[in-house]
């Protein structure tokens, strides 16, 4: 689930977990109300702004959480998947922010759940932790687990997700695979440097969406890069440098949220 801050990602997760009640409609997990203990026994969760007691050790708190689930993972396995093997004997209060985030991941997976809900899981993780986390996600999804996670890191969604739901201000504005999402929005990015600064309005009327114009630099999104270039040559724009690349998810996302802004 991808969206900017305030898009409604956490609210959506809370509804799916039964932590909030919908004003209309209903949420079901495995055909059960999400508050049902049978449903909860098959989910693992990692929430933003949640905490644990600080005086237990990592191993102790993982062991307590394992008793909540009918068929938990061995504690060593949960700890190694979260990259916390070395901190097993450390008290929770002594962990760094990144290690704490890994602990919440260990608590989410220790019950060997069928579905994982991870709300902004990589916030506060350092590069190393993030790499380990990515590897664990691929391992888990390879064993048939469903993983629902929220992020506002576009790169992260592109790397990890098979299906991306883009939400903005409480509304779904796209629901597709990363590839489909790219196909649906301007697929090429044209970046060019002109011999002189662009005049205001000089790039109007092109079959493209202008990403930015700064001095003599401009970036455009388009599905017809050839037509754009023809028109630029016809207008006599003198180009010093030119690059046409495939748009990445960030740009696809920008185009999608802009469209919803235009409609509003």
């Amino acid at each position, binding site marked *: 689930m991808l969206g900017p801050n305030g898009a409604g990602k956490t609210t959506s997760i*809370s509804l799916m*977990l039964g*932590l*909030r*009640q919908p004003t209309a409609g209903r949420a079901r997990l495995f055909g059960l109300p999400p508050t049902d*203990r*049978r449903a*909860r*026994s098959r*989910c693992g*969760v990692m*929430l933003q*702004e*949640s*905490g*644990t*007691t*600080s*005086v*237990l050790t990592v191993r*102790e*708190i993982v*062991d*307590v*959480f394992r*008793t*909540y*689930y*009918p*068929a938990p*993972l*061995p504690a060593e*396995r949960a700890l190694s998947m979260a990259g916390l093997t070395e901190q097993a004997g450390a008290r929770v209060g002594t962990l760094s922010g990144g290690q704490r985030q890994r602990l*919440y991941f260990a*608590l989410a997976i220790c*019950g*060997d759940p*069928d579905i994982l*809900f991870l709300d902004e899981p990589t916030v506060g993780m350092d590069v190393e932790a993030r790499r380990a986390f990515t590897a664990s996600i691929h*391992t*888990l999804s390879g*064993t*048939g*687990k469903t993983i629902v996670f929220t992020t506002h890191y576009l790169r992260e969604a592109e790397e990890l997700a098979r299906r991306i739901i883009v939400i903005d201000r409480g509304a779904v504005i796209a629901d597709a695979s990363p590839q489909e999402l790219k196909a649906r929005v301007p697929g090429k990015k044209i970046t060019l440097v002109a011999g002189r600064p662009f005049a205001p309005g000089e790039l109007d009327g092109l079959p493209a969406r202008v990403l930015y114009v700064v001095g003599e630099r401009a970036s455009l999104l388009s599905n017809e890069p050839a037509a754009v270039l023809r028109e630029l040559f016809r207008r006599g724009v003198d180009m010093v440098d030119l690059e046409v690349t495939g748009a990445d998810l960030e740009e696809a996302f920008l185009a999608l949220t802009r469209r919803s802004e235009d409609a509003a």
Partner: protein
Amino acid sequence: MTASAPRPAAGPDVAPLGRMLWAQTWSELRIRWRIPAFSLTIVALPVLFFTFFGLPYATQTLPDGTSLGAYLLASFAAYSVGSVMVFGFGIGVATERGLKVDVLMRATPLPPYIAILAKVLNALAYALLSLVILIGYGIVVGGIRQDLTVWLDMIARLLAGSVPFIALGFAIGYLCGPNVAPAVANLVYLPLSFASGLFMPLSQLPGFVRGIAPYLPAYHYGQLGWSALGANTERLPVSLAWLTGYTLLFLAIAVRAYRQEESRKFG
């Protein structure tokens, strides 16, 4: 590898509650034990208070023939159990709310009543520990002698009657933040104990205090302890009725504060 094994069709849907309760209680015990501010206070303070206010009179007897030492030991035993409940639940719940432990726990399969039951069992265990140390101290150092059955009876009555203080603890824990809860717990519980005759017999307190004591929960709770010695001044059913009433009142306050927070936090 467990992760790749499909969940067996005949496997249980949920984890056994007994195992959860045991693990939860055991972890609560360890958590409390590792917070010296709690473990030392609940063990040391009653003994300290008894040393100052009880030991000097340990060998005297009341007009009705009851040992004053045993009477005061019962008073401080009541104070001690009440303090375990009010401080344990009040500060414990407020601290957990401060750390946002509750946010994550709400999403786990742990039923809330198991979590609460574990807290109660944990508090009863610490209350028992505190009583054994205090009464043992009174026997060994104060030379206070009663039949073993009297002491056991007193312990049983005080543990069973501690419910209103659990409710008071919950009320403080849900009304106050983690920084305010200890102060509020002290401000409520210490004057309450004092005015209820737990620190010194009511007969030695000012007249207006004697006037309000019969309306206080700690006064009727003290009666439970004194009744084990046959030294209660209120009929037991009357005290039990008062304690039940206060339990309902404190629970109502706690539930109200809990609901308000729920609606604020989770809409």
